[in-house]
């Protein structure tokens, strides 16, 4: 059974009671990421989907406030009608997770979900201006506000973003939106190996052409994109967005430089929209399987080294977003968590999150990157201050978290 409060007051009441009785709550939105995080025993599900609707949207101010359970689709439709968008390009997890729930805006921020534009436009947390949430004592707390610049007090907004429902129950979010670009074009360089592609992406980002997407799709996955229409060989994709006049000038410039790396082809706006949506939603691994799927974040120059090292010891398939710094990695059999995390550490740091795996694998694999003792202890103290009774999915993220 899922608890579905229809008002913030009801939510606070339910949580106060749960805290008093020590009932563990698994907070969720539409459950499109069900099966994510460490399994937690004995929880009752509590969803924000009863708290739904856009509260305030001022297109002229580029700010939108919605109740946490509002479907992402509803938000996107409202924004689209005003030619605006969420710049952080939140992905839809349903394909890779094999779920069917309705993604909610609260869920997007609770999981800090971002897409290909993240490395220039920031993550979900960077667009989030203000929140209302219920803490573990059943108190309604407001943090942040509705203006872009705000350093008034501690930034609890960022703390709650990406806390996966372990610190508080989001009831309302206020975030910044941006105009939809007038024009989009994608430059694809073909046939590069992972190392050369990484160099090509780094040099593209050093040019004054404002690349807003940089992904490398090795030969093994390339055919799964754009209906198989990408040219022969691995595809390194670079996206340009903005005013039409400016995009075509920048595309010329970028293509001229990229030709030194390999053959260049250009894709127009509609093709670009489809391609980057597939990259965003990790289309090749929306494969209906439960093969372990990792989301790895490292320094962009190191991504291909990590994959090369792992390939020598494990069955791994991978592709790269964020200039090579975000690696989606599907393991053939074993999740190889220890090996993966050892290599990440050896290369200089980053983190690996197990996004999908069978129940048996999830039961014995830590989903989130383990932290240093000092940071883990500090995080536990922070959790204790928001959720003193430890009722919000304790252990979902690690130890007490």
């Amino acid at each position: 059974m899922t608890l579905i409060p229809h008002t913030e007051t009801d939510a606070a009441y339910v949580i106060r009671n749960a805290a008093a009785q020590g009932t563990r709550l698994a907070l969720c939105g539409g459950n499109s990421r069900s099966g994510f995080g460490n399994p937690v025993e004995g929880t009752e599900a509590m969803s924000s989907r009863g708290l739904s609707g856009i509260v305030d949207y001022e297109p002229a101010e580029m700010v939108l406030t919605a109740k946490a359970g509002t479907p992402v689709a509803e938000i996107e439709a409202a924004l689209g009608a005003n030619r605006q968008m969420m710049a952080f390009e939140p992905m839809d997890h349903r394909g890779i997770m094999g779920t069917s729930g309705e993604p909610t805006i609260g869920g997007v921020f609770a999981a800090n979900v971002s897409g290909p534009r993240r490395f220039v436009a920031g993550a979900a947390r960077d667009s989030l201006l203000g929140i209302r949430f219920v803490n573990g004592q059943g108190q309604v707390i407001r943090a942040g506000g509705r203006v872009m610049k705000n350093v008034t007090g501690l930034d609890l907004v960022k703390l709650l973003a990406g806390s996966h429902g372990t610190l508080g129950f989001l009831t309302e979010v206020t975030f910044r939106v941006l105009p939809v670009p007038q024009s989009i074009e994608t430059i694809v360089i073909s046939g590069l190996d992972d190392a050369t592609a990484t160099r090509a992406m780094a040099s593209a980002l050093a040019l004054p052409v404002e690349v807003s997407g940089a992904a490398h799709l090795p030969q093994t996955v390339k055919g799964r994109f754009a209906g198989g229409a990408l040219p022969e060989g691995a595809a390194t994709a670079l996206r340009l967005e903005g005013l039409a006049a400016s995009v075509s000038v920048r595309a010329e410039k970028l293509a001229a430089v990229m030709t030194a790396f390999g053959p260049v082809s250009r894709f127009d706006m509609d093709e670009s929209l489809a391609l980057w949506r597939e990259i965003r939603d990790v289309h090749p691994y929306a494969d209906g399987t439960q093969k372990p799927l990792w989301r790895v974040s490292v320094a962009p120059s190191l991504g291909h080294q990590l994959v090369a090292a792992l390939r020598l010891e494990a069955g791994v398939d991978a592709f790269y977003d964020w200039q090579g710094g975000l690696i989606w990695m599907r393991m053939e059999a074993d999740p190889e968590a220890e090996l993966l995390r050892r290599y990440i550490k050896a290369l200089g740091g980053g983190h690996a999150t197990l996004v999908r795996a069978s129940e048996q694998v999830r039961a014995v694999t830590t989903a989130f990157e383990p932290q240093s003792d000092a940071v883990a202890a500090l995080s536990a103290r922070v959790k204790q201050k928001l959720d003193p009774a430890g009722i919000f999915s304790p252990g979902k993220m690690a130890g007490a978290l």
Partner: protein
Amino acid sequence: MSEAIEFLPPRPAVLSRRSAIIADLADLLPAECVIHEARELVPFETDAFISYRRLPLAVVLPKTTAQAAAVMKYCHRYGIPVVPRGAGTSLSGGAIPQEDAIVLGLSKMSRILEVDYANRTATVQAGVTNLSISEAVGVDGFFYAPDPSSQLACTIGGNIGMNSGGAHCLKYGVTTNNLLGVKMVLVDGTVVDFGGKHLDSAGYDLLGLVCGSEGQLGIVTEATVRLIAKPEGARPVLFGFETSEEAGACVTDIIASGIIPVAIEFMDKPAIEICEAFAHAGYPLDVGALLIVEVEGSEAEMDATLAGIVEIARRHGVKTVRESQSATEAALIWKGRKSAFGATGRIADYICMDGTVPLGKLSYVLKKTSEITDSFGLRVANVFHAGDGNMHPLILFNANDPEDAARAEAAGNEILKLCVDAGGCLTGEHGVGIEKRDLMRHQYSDADLAQQMAVRSAFDEGWILNPSKVFPLDGRPAA
């Protein structure tokens, strides 16, 4: 000068051990890193919020993270307050010490440790100045985006403490959006790393929490920041209007049209006159308000963007449109804007407000602001980041006249309340410090503040880090 804002009473147990503490610090650090002679402490008694001063017990200037950690471990053990300090340019009193506090200054940690173009990051010690990063990477076509007006002097450590912004954050975001990682000394001397060259955090976003925490969660000693490829070109353009209302409405319409310039800066008549007299930037003097709008990119892109902006400005009756014709002219335009605070300081004492309001309320808040200052018999100059609604009314007064100073403070409080009531906040980029501390209840409920303070306690149970700042002195959790 009136002293409306209280500090915590000094801890007697600390004051009474003053000489022992200084001797212990001298054991922990090299001799040149400990300052305790009264006359040498004077430069540390205040920051850019000069109305308040307190001589600290001592000042330490560690050269390494390990030395900073040793000081924290010691102060934690004995319950000695620690006030972190970058360059002391805080406009909200964030770096003002107190009699029982050790000032932990970062001026001896001012090296750029690594520039990594493949990953577009710079790793620097926290005492590095904001501008020196852009200077170091500029020849290679990169820059560090946040650009507070004090960027020549202010440090990255201080920028992180206050989550500083600047004129160009309309497009590129403020410090927190450009910060990838920090090395931080926790209150007990433990050294931790949050983030790194990769994006997003592994667990809770403690990096996001630390940024803007005003030195209350730990001492940041190193930072990894994001570098951005410099645009091909940038062109500031001056738009002169008859009235502030017209200029304000124009800003709202530019943003509403979907055009996002790199910067939209606003100056009213008093600000124009003050800055022009100082910088000779070529600002028109026959207008009531001025916008500096900067566009960037290729020539074609700048032309296209500007055409759209000019059209909107014409609808609002723009009187003067002047494009900079050369790099020198562009630099001069920005020099005038960035020297606004300094130039104002030459003609009067002033306090600078920092409230942010929703864009649709700009004109209303400008009008109300001058009504408020009029009612106190004070002059005001407005120069601010209009594109993101971050207002900076400069209230002019005479610091030698205690009554005038008290009036200025009272008018400032009224203006900040106005910003909050208009749907905005008390501070957009200067921080709460001591200046806005006692107004926090106007923006937050007791439960909101209690939650923030509880999280703060998770980092510093004994509240020794910058203790007189940010949170009202009454209603704090028992240490």
